[in-house]
């Protein structure tokens, strides 16, 4: 019996380094290949030894699927394909394919050039890795091989993010990656059809939150930024170059225009201009409103937002700076943070989730004395704000998606253990779905309804009525080809003759009348009892019930007895034997 096995190699009950191995009907698919940004050692990458202990990755895996370009979903890809060694296909959407190598290179630079890490992948490895990528369109059914097919659905979250359906025969799994169910300022909401997978693997980053309305959060954000710059403070917003950054820029841009503010807004350079270009060229992946108006006005050309120079950080007076990366773990955002942290007038707004171990996570959890490299201690006096802008589905959104796809069971990953437990109960209560959840390298198994095989039904067996009906036929099995045909057809195809088995029983009756009259009496008797059957009186004097023939004869020796010859074939045995026993009881006395 085929079954679905899920092995989280990275994110089980943990955010960061998403990497899940799914075995479905003999096919092995790896979903995402992320890294954990909170670690600097081996724990940074998923545990591929689970696979490699049995041989090469390429031999074991049928394909790899990357859901979107965030590093916690694709950061380990060059390590995986070039350093561990994988040569099979890697599937991702076009925008992901375009943006992912840039982010990888960016991260590589920080890791190797700034931190001087050894044993990290090289630029060439990123290029070689990307050569193995096959781009997929939304809703395109990609035939990985004869049996395995995958299909991408829109996931929102970031440009090009997709959910994937993995299907082998009648078994299917849907993997959501990260997604959001409410459209935001530049992306649409995730959507999936009622594909009824056996298993839905969904992220659960915001498993417990039901976030307040989007508008409130936006107003909150603008108010905090505005108050800070009004009192002369500086605002630092650590972001990833693509995604949230664009949404927040659109938000500030329109606010600045409306309020006629002159305080400068900067965006750390390099990636950003390029990023906006990508957004423009991939307009079909953005939300309805931007798609409709892009001809008149490109939402990603900002008037108030200028490129940032490192020297600006020391300028006096208020300013707002978007700087990468988003979790304050390295690079420009961390540099600026160190400069501004000591002043209580300043503010840092963390607009997204921070993984454990990063500076972002530490300050959000209330830590105000940070140990930096070289045993230096940094005292944080600036205000620290967290704004949940990160486009993940909240509990309500997850439930919504489960409702859309109607899976047989749900598996929660990419979240924290406690939160997942809460959501698990909620889904089980409200949606009555069987639920499983996973920690790293646990292998929950999913028994599901299996269909033993499929057969073809040929001529004459095709149903006309929609009612269930009893069907009899012969299954011809040749190699792995199954065909269900009528028995006559099967005999014919195999060149066999039918052997007819017929029974004729003699039933003795006391009846002095003539044979013809006896037959007529038999006819009316049977007609009155067998209402659902076709009873006929033929011109030659015989009676038929369906295909059963009844003839009356008078044995010469005894005029008081008539013999009924009841004749039927093996196929009509039930009815035939019923009729003989019925007639044996005799005929009712005629009224006349």
């Amino acid at each position, binding site marked *: 019996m085929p079954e679905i096995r899920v092995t989280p190699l990275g994110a089980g009950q943990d955010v960061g380094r998403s990497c899940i191995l799914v075995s479905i009907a003999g096919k092995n698919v790896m979903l995402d290949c992320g890294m954990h940004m909170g670690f600097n050692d081996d724990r940074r990458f998923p545990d591929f030894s689970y696979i490699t202990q049995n041989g090469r990755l390429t031999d074991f895996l049928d394909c790899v699927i990357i859901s979107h370009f965030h590093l916690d979903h694709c950061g380990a890809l060059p390590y995986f394909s070039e350093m561990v060694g994988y040569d099979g296909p890697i599937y991702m959407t*076009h925008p992901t394919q375009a943006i992912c190598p840039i982010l990888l290179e960016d991260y590589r630079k920080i890791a190797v050039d700034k931190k001087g890490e050894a044993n990290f992948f090289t630029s060439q490895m990123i290029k070689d890795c990307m050569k193995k990528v096959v781009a997929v369109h939304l809703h395109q059914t990609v035939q990985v091989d004869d049996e395995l097919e995958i299909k991408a659905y829109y996931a929102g979250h970031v440009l090009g993010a997709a959910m994937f359906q993995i299907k082998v025969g009648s078994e299917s799994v849907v993997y959501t990656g990260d997604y959001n169910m409410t459209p935001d300022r530049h992306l649409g909401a995730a959507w999936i059809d009622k594909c009824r997978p056996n298993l839905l693997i969904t992220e659960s980053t915001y498993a417990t939150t039901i976030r307040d309305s989007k508008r409130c959060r936006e107003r909150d954000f603008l108010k905090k930024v505005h108050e800070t710059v009004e009192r002369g403070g500086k605002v630092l917003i650590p972001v990833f170059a693509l995604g949230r950054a664009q949404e927040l820029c659109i938000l500030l841009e329109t606010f600045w225009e409306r309020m006629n503010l002159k305080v400068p807004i900067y965006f750390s350079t390099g990636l950003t201009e390029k990023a906006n270009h990508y957004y423009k060229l991939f307009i079909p992946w953005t939300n309805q409103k931007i798609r409709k108006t892009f001809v008149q006005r490109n939402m990603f050309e900002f008037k108030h937002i200028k490129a940032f120079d490192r020297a600006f950080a020391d300028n006096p007076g208020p300013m707002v700076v978007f700087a990468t990366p988003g979790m304050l773990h390295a690079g420009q955002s961390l540099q600026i943070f160190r400069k501004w942290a000591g002043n209580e007038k300043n503010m840092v707004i963390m607009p997204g989730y921070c993984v454990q171990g990063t500076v972002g996570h530490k300050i959000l959890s209330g830590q105000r004395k940070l140990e930096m490299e070289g045993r230096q201690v940094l005292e944080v006096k600036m205000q620290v704000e967290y704004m949940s802008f990160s486009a993940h589905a909240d509990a309500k959104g997850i439930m919504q998606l489960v409702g859309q796809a109607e899976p047989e069971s749900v598996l929660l990953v990419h979240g924290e253990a406690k939160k997942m437990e809460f959501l698990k109960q909620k889904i089980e209560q409200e949606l009555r779905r069987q639920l499983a959840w996973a920690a790293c390298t646990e292998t929950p198994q999913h028994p599901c309804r299996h269909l033993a095989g499929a057969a073809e039904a040929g001529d004459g067996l095709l149903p006309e009525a*929609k009612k269930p*009906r009893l069907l009899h036929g012969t299954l011809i099995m040749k190699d792995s080809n199954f065909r269900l045909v009528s028995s006559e057809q099967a005999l014919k195809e195999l060149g066999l003759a039918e*052997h007819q088995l017929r029974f004729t029983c003699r039933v003795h009756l006391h009846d002095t009348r003539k044979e013809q009259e006896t037959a007529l009496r038999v006819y009316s008797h049977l007609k009155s009892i067998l209402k659902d059957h076709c009873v006929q009186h033929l011109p030659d004097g015989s009676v038929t019930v369906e295909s059963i023939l009844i003839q009356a004869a008078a044995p010469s020796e005894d005029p008081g007895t008539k013999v009924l010859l009841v004749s039927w074939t093996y196929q009509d045995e*039930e009815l035939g034997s019923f009729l003989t026993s019925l007639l044996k009881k005799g005929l009712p006395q005629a009224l006349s």
Partner: protein
Amino acid sequence: MCKTELIDLSTVDVILISNYHCMMALPYITEHTGFTGTVYATEPTVQIGRLLMEELVNFIERVPKAQSASLWKNKDIQRLLPSPLKDAVEVSTWRRCYTMQEVNSALSKIQLVGYSQKIELFGAVQVTPLSSGYALGSSNWIIQSHYEKVSYVSGSSLLTTHPQPMDQASLKNSDVLVLTGLTQIPTANPDGMVGEFCSNLALTVRNGGNVLVPCYPSGVIYDLLECLYQYIDSAGLSSVPLYFISPVANSSLEFSQIFAEWLCHNKQSKVYLPEPPFPHAELIQTNKLKHYPSIHGDFSNDFRQPCVVFTGHPSLRFGDVVHFMELWGKSSLNTVIFTEPDFSYLEALAPYQPLAMKCIYCPIDTRLNFIQVSKLLKEVQPLHVVCPEQYTQPPPAQSHRMDLMIDCQPPAMSYRRAEVLALPFKRRYEKIEIMPELADSLVPMEIKPGISLATVSAVLHTKDNKHLLQPPPRPAQPTSGKKRKRVSDDVPDCKVLKPLLSGSIPVEQFVQTLEKHGFSDIKVEDTAKGHIVLLQEAETLIQIEEDSTHIICDNDEMLRVRLRDLVLKFLQKF
């Protein structure tokens, strides 16, 4: 326009759109016929189709008519009118152009699909759009069940222009391939035509004349602009302005840049840099190409001559092109270059005669020609080809050109306007799923090497056109006889089917078996076709022939069943 009397459009379930040129009549169907089905098309098809319709509506609405004549449509009057009016068919069905509201409403009913997306229709068939290589988002369609496949190939191109290349591999193994939308100009080579276009354009402009290119606002114009981008600098024409005038000019140029996923590989990879896929972005940036919604407004201020103007409508009957024909027609310095193949250029020019301006006809039609068709058919090998009648014979004007027709084996089946054609295949098989419990209960037996049989008695459930075989219900337990049973309650359900039998009965062994089971007094008689076995004591007769056995006995059920089982031992069940 679609002919609609033949079918009741309210009974149509699905419309599949091949490319944006093939959807111009859509509002007539979705808005006025009671059609409630689904329309499927790709996103570029819908977006650019919208632009084409928008331009059409805009052109028509610019010249409102206070009244419209209809009396001429009377057949007696119509036949007296000059050609082409007197030859027009079905003039009574001609309709006014739709409005933008109708366009928007029609387009809102379209369901967007992507290439290679499998779309289930009522569980009965699956349709899939494939890239056809002709235009942005243009598709061929596969309509298939599990065992039959029909391909609809309409408007395909094997040339490398801007769209994604044609997907030929997926068309293989078709039972029927419906082939239409071939090139209108089978004798013209598109590459040569582009060369001629450029050289004529350069010649005119160098002599101080203007060039007019009547065209649609999307499609070949992208390729022409790309050619000019490469050509104008080398030809020393970089100072000559290119004007693109259409109510949708800006949108068309912008939209072309955002459909990278639907473009050929070269253009697609530009987006990864990130750069706009079409070089007309650079032409616009450097002010070499300017676009205007109409000749009024900004255009009149910027207008410089000599220049090149791209504008519609290619029929020369409406749109801004009319203005330029009148403006430039009197000077032999100017040139009009026809590139769109949809209209006869002589007919288009007729009302403007006499004309001093030069006319160049270089139609660029990238769709399949007959050589490419025969190559394609060899490649995908459909069992049957179905096509419009005109493709099965040479064009009337070139009746000696036997190479200008579809030549395939078996010969293509042809159809005509308003004709119903039955496709030459029958659905014989359906996919059925077998529940594991039932599968477990099957007992296969090997009949021939490699071939096994199992008889199946099961309940067939059909839901949403999907079939599922489940184990038959267990016979109901006899009810504890509280109520007096009526005789008719016992009538067996004749739907319980018994298998067919096959094989033959060797008489000697059969008799031995009878003896072993306690029958004595057995007599065997030979007959013409077989044997008769007599059980004298039981007054029973068993006729055994090659293909039949007949048991004739008294009404003794026990005996009959015993004999039956002994006979069945020698036979196979199916």
